[in-house]
């Protein structure tokens, strides 16, 4: 750029010089400016897709698979060393495989050996908003279950089928405490009834993150219509996560694992003598 001092007065000349110098300085500064803001991490309350038995609003990243294995040891912890605090078994177990076609959708197929229950469910993460600094996450879950080993019935009997729906509401308070509510609906609650019965339940749970990878969690499912099942199902435990796994160990009064089973209730009261050990391990995979 050519700078000419053409002003007649000294003031004009000085002004022109300043303008000229500032123009040179501007040219020497890089013209580059940041074009986009840094990526914001997605909103989240819980880290795993389930707390213990109840679902969270979390899904997986699109394209990911999740394998899970979960046990409920039938002997109570109170049986002591004779039953190795329950670890001698027998156990009820659940094997599950989930797949996320998108970031919002999770399809899980699972089987529990309790009544040979097959379970197919779809979870949709509908909403994640921040209101006054508090994240609110909403998901819907719908599923169908088929028990193929109901005493006195053929495997294919229509009365062995159950359907359920859950609304999942999650939030975080005080930065490290995640809370959830799961109003739930179950059709054909009691497999041994001739006419199907439907009912509503309310799952409540919380998780306190002691560190970024270690947490304690607890859940409770409030229900009414449970016939011979005397108690609500509850559990309290600890959770450890790595970048690809969750390890959960807990005490529970329920030995039922799949949703159409644990929602209904349990034979055992939530008392020290009746608590059982359980664990769950999940592994995330991408092929």
């Amino acid at each position, binding site marked *: 750029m050519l700078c000419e001092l053409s002003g007649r007065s000294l003031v004009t000349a000085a002004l022109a010089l300043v303008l000229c110098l500032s123009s040179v300085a501007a*040219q020497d500064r890089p013209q580059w400016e940041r074009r986009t803001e840094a990526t914001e991490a997605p909103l989240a309350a819980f880290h795993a897709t389930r707390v213990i038995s109840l679902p969270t609003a979390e899904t997986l990243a699109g394209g990911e698979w999740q394998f899970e294995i979960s046990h409920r040891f039938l002997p109570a912890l109170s049986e002591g060393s004779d039953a190795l605090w329950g670890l001698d078994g027998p156990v009820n177990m659940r094997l599950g495989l989930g797949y996320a076609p998108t970031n919002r959708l999770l399809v899980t197929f699972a089987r529990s050996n309790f009544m040979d229950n097959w379970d197919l469910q779809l979870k949709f993460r509908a909403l994640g908003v921040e209101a006054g600094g508090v994240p609110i996450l909403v998901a819907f879950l719908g599923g169908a279950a088929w028990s193929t080993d109901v005493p006195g019935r053929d495997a294919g009997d229509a009365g062995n089928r159950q359907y359920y729906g859950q609304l999942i509401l999650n939030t975080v308070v005080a930065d490290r405490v995640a809370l959830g509510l799961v109003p739930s609906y179950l059709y054909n609650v009691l497999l041994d009834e001739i006419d199907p019965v439907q009912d509503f339940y309310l799952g409540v749970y919380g998780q306190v993150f002691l560190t970024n990878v270690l947490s304690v969690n607890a859940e409770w499912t409030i229900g009414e219509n449970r016939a011979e099942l005397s108690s609500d199902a509850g559990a309290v435990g600890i959770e450890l*996560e790595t970048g690809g796994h969750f390890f959960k160990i807990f005490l529970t009064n329920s030995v039922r694992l799949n949703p159409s089973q644990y929602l209904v209730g349990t034979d055992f009261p939530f008392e020290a003598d009746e608590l059982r050990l359980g664990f769950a391990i999940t592994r995330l995979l991408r092929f």
Partner: protein
Amino acid sequence: MNWALFKSFVNADRVVRLSVAFLFAVVAPSWLAGQEYHVDVEQENLVRFVSDAPIEDFDGVTQRIDGFLVLPQGNLGVTELSASEFYFEVDIASLDTGIGLRNRHMRDNYLETDEFPYATFAGRVVRIDEEPSGRFRALTKGVFAVHGVEREREVECTADRAGRSLRISCAFQVKLSDHNIPIPRLMFLKINEVMELELDFFLAPAGGGERR
């Protein structure tokens, strides 16, 4: 083939190539000079780290690198290059390791991206050599910062001409403890605390013109 003759031919060729390289190192690639280059964000840029873990290696990738390089006028010898300047930044919350949960761990537990959203490298070019193939080899010196901890680093990069743009490739190692990054545990086994960092990105002349 006469083996001795073949070897002497190869050696002679090396001598010639080295001589040519030396010649080009002295004679500056003048078309590079006097330009400001910006990262061409429309191109398929790639920033990748590779972690060596006992059970499985994993990597994290992102396209989100931005920044600039300013090369002064002149011959681009060591003296002229002291007026060079560059700044590059990588949006590290965008790094994808292939597993969503692992991304979260990386963001929240190790890199703390809420507080330190960018990894940056700012400094100047110390030396540019042009090889007979037309590839430039550049030694850069500057401050590499990640997780809020700055370290002086020398990094060697190559630059290939791609039309009016330059394709830059660099590779260097980052020791996590140098940047106060706790070593991630994977299945209770520690991963290697030295990460391999690879960059492959395009620079295009800013504003389509030379700096005056």
